[in-house]
């Protein structure tokens, strides 16, 4: 069995194992797994409306997953996607609310602002890592809290339009579309999914096809060799964090310009950034993998919302997601089993 196939099969097995173990847990705790999965499927694909919602949910997951994966490929663990996501959201909404511009300028400008904000938020840990070798995990975690509270403060005091949230963005900055919404009988789907898919392509192209990507990956694999080869390790560390932050910022823009159209004071972390870590892990830190992992997470999350209607607590889906992540993290086990299996096949 080729390495490639094993790389592909590992996450699939992880998903299957997660679902199987989740089923066992349902049985043991007295819920009907068939009902639960039907409810889950109905909740995600019951009608086009639900599917529209899945797409809407998948959009920020893809981008957050890309953000985590991109930094990871350069050997950095960006836990700060959540914070970069929040500042990106605010920046996009700020542009959306403040300016009056034609759509063709307004949307790109708002997304650009989100990228800048997210990029800046990631630049700080990148700089500290490059200059002083401060571990990025610690700094990004702290930056998450700073983001949350600073953004809440700004929303509450500077942009508050009542009820602790900003005003609505102008129509010209909105990614919502009457057409898409009607197509899915009124879901909150928006054009952001196209942006997310483009970003997948950008990440793949940047990492695999450009000299910059060659450097970034080299730094990720072996900093000493990268240095030996004349690459600037520090520059690439900072750059990778900034690009990662840009993806996270765009993810925030999707919420600001698409899903919500405003920003409200956040009672706590949204979880999108943290789900991004799981998505990246499941997707093997590749662009295409992130896309499919995000799709799975979106389906599970939206589908889960309807599970209480079938009398099954939706926390069960959270358990299944956790199990999948667990099995991916423990993919070593799955690999060994697969390799054993393939060996027997040869005999």
């Amino acid at each position, binding site marked *: 069995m080729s390495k490639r196939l094993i790389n592909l099969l590992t996450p699939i097995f992880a998903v299957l194992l997660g679902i199987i173990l989740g089923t066992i847990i349902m049985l043991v705790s007295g819920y009907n797994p068939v009902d639960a999965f039907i409810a889950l499927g109905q909740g995600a694909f019951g009608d086009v409306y639900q599917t529209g919602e899945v797409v809407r949910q998948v959009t920020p997951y893809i981008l957050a997953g890309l953000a985590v994966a991109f930094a990871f490929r350069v050997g950095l663990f960006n836990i700060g996607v959540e914070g970069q996501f929040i500042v990106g959201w605010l920046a996009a909404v700020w542009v959306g609310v403040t300016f009056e511009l034609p759509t063709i300028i307004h949307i790109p400008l708002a997304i650009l602002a989100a990228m800048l904000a997210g990029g800046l938020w990631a630049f700080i840990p990148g700089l500290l890592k490059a200059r002083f070798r401060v571990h990025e995990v610690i700094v990004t975690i702290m930056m998450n809290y700073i983001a949350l509270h600073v953004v809440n403060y700004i929303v509450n005091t500077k942009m508050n339009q009542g009820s602790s949230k900003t005003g609505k963005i102008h129509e010209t900055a909105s990614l919502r579309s009457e057409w898409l919404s009607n197509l899915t009988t009124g879901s909150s789907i928006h054009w952001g999914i196209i942006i997310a898919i483009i970003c997948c392509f950008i990440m793949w192209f940047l990492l695999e096809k450009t000299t910059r990507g060659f450097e970034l990956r080299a730094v990720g694999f072996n900093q000493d060799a990268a240095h030996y080869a004349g690459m600037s390790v520090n520059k690439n560390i900072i750059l990778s964090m900034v690009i990662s932050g840009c993806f996270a910022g765009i993810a925030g823009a999707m919420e600001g310009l698409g*899903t919500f159209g405003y920003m409200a004071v956040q009672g706590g972390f949204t979880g999108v950034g943290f789900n991004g870590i799981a998505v990246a892990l499941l997707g093997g830190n590749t662009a295409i993998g992130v896309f499919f992992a995000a799709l799975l997470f979106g389906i599970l999350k939206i589908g889960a919302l309807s599970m209480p209607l079938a009398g099954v607590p939706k926390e069960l889906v959270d358990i299944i997601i956790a199990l999948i992540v667990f099995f991916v993290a423990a993919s070593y086990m799955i690999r060994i089993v697969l390799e054993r299996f393939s060996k027997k096949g040869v005999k």
Partner: protein
Amino acid sequence: MKKHKIGMALSLVLAAGTLLGACGKSDDTTKDQAKGGDKEKTTFSVAMVTDVGGVDDKSFNQSAWEGLQGFGKDNGLEKGKGGYDYLQSTSDADYTTNLNTLARQGFNLVYGIGFLMHDAVDGIAKQQPKTNFAIVDDEVKQPNVASVLFKEQEAAFLAGVAAALTTKSNHIGFIGGMEIPVIERFESGFLAGVKAAKPEAKVDVQYSGAFDKAELGQTIASKMYSSGADVVFHAAGATGNGLFKEAGDLKKKDPSREIWAIGVDRDQNDMGPDVVLTSAMKRVDVAVKDLSTKAKDGKFPGGETAIYGLHEDGVGLAPVNSKAPNKDAIDKAVKEWVEKIKSGDVKVPGTRDELKTFSAK
């Protein structure tokens, strides 16, 4: 070796199962009912969407769900489609989806619990004009939306009176969730109540910034108690659970110590029978039940805002803890203030600005 592994995996699964089983117990009974009574079709069904606190937040959302359950029982409805039900939200992004899902399931009336759902209710109400919606704690101006507001300040005022008459250190604490109008009403009313009953007592006001961070609530409570406060009131949802934990811990360590906590939204006496002095009740359950009944009777107040105060029994003070040292005095004082508020003699301030000019007669 292998056996050992399997055994461990099995015990893990079992452990997870029992935990879940415990969580879902309350649902089990209702589910059984649902299966038993499929034939009986009712014409009116109602559902609600919780905010991120979840249906078991021991506070706001739970109170609303109790109201729905009560309504269901009174009218012979079953949990589920065609009866009464709820959906939980894990993030702000879920509100719209959940509201829409319920509307599409054909529920006649769908509640959005909490001001956070304002925009979601507003949007979905336009999309689903045939369904009636209601929002709690905010106003949505749509013909098919009823808004429910409370005079939280009145309940909080009474809690303030109780706190003022209980404190010995003349040092009282207030823990707010987020700085939003609803909580500002709690804060203003509470401060006014303390001021009215004991002007020399000072109140330490702190906000946790979240409604779902019990550990944060505990930290704040710990600081307040250690700096001399002996009565602390919270209006912070699940964050406030930390307050009861802290008070209970302190009481356990030193049973002779006089410390009290005041609950919010529902009678939170169950959170610590030894330390919960009383609770500023916001009867979301009453409001939900009341509004549901009106809707069922075809009198749905679409486009209107219903305000529930002391007068409507929409807010109130829970029975004062029998272990409180001067329970009688408190009961007496509370009774007097209730009269005054009901009669309109006293207007309890609902904002900080109003509080500045407030003076109790």
